[in-house]
């Protein structure tokens, strides 16, 4: 059967336990009388189709919840992943500090050119906030990774964050394809690493509708 999409990107959600990774992927709320079969078992991954500048892009998004208590994610999980969302909780200092450890874990296990983005989740809980937005931005500048504060609860900035990450992966792939200039569009599979220059984290974002 003919392929019906232009790109396929595997994305991972990574971060400490309880930062809301599952809420980013999973929105179901249980009602009082019935228990949803799906919420009992839990979601492993989702496939989403988005349009990026006229290209049909399939995102396969994996939740790593349940694995993070081992403090590392195994190489198997990273295999083939092209983008990683590093998630911390703005009401949990430790989860923010651990972002550095997660970055190290990624450097040791994931492909060298994997695109990354930092998400400061639960920004709706302003009264309980422990990590300022400025500190999140500073960390992002330090690692030259894009950053945005999100609220999975209010669906704030979550979708746009995935679009941003996907757009960056697509741009990187297209650049590589141009560099090796093959006449045919090979699409879904990345060509092996060439060292790319990282863009500075100039992408402005705030936890409010602009």
């Amino acid at each position, binding site marked *: *059967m003919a392929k*019906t*999409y232009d790109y*396929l990107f595997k994305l991972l959600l990574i971060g400490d336990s309880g930062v809301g990774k599952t809420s980013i992927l*999973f*929105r*179901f709320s249980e009602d009082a*009388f*019935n*228990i*949803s*079969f*799906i*919420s*009992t*078992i*839990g*979601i*492993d*991954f*989702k*496939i*989403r*189709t988005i349009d990026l500048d006229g290209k049909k892009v*399939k995102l*396969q998004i994996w939740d790593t919840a349940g694995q993070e208590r081992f403090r590392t994610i195994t190489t198997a999980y990273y295999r083939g992943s092209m983008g990683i969302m590093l998630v911390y909780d703005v009401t949990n200092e430790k989860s923010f500090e651990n972002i550095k450890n997660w970055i190290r874990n990624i450097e040791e296990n994931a492909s060298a050119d994997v695109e990354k983005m930092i998400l400061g989740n639960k920004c709706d809980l302003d009264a309980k906030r422990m990590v300022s937005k400025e500190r999140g931005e500073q960390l992002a500048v330090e690692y030259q990774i894009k950053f945005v504060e999100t609220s999975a609860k209010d669906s704030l900035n979550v979708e746009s964050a995935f679009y941003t990450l996907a757009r960056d992966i697509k741009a990187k792939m297209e650049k590589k394809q141009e560099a090796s200039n093959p006449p045919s569009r090979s699409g879904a599979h990345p060509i092996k690493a060439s060292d790319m220059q990282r863009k500075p984290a100039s992408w402005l974002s705030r936890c409010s509708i602009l």
Partner: protein
Amino acid sequence: MHILFALKTLYHNLYLKKVPKIRIMADADIKTTVEETNKDYVEDGKNKLNVKCKFCSSKILDKQSANYITQEKQLPLMQQDNNREEGEIQTESVNEFYHVENMYTFENIGFTHSVDNYKYLSCADCDAGPVGYYDMNTKHSYVALSRVVHS
């Protein structure tokens, strides 16, 4: 004489043929339902229309991307009764499915963690489900027609 014959026939129909007749009718009904579904939603063995979530209209399958098949399969109910016994899974029998060979054919879909050799399929936007299942041996997916809408 005619009345007697008519009564005899009536007796025959009502009592002797009652049970098999009803069963035959039931079979015919199922066939009719399947054929009607075919006509409305299936064209050339594929889904004629887009397949969407019943609850939030999230697009699950693009039109003409999956094959219509009939098979009997027990599928867990979307809502499990709180009063059910512990560990019990309430299911119902489902007969009509869309067969999806490659998971990337889906527009938007969720895959649950594995249960035995299956993953269940859920709406990627509202998480309603199971709308079908994924067989880990064959890597093929099956979407239940009764759990989705067409448009």
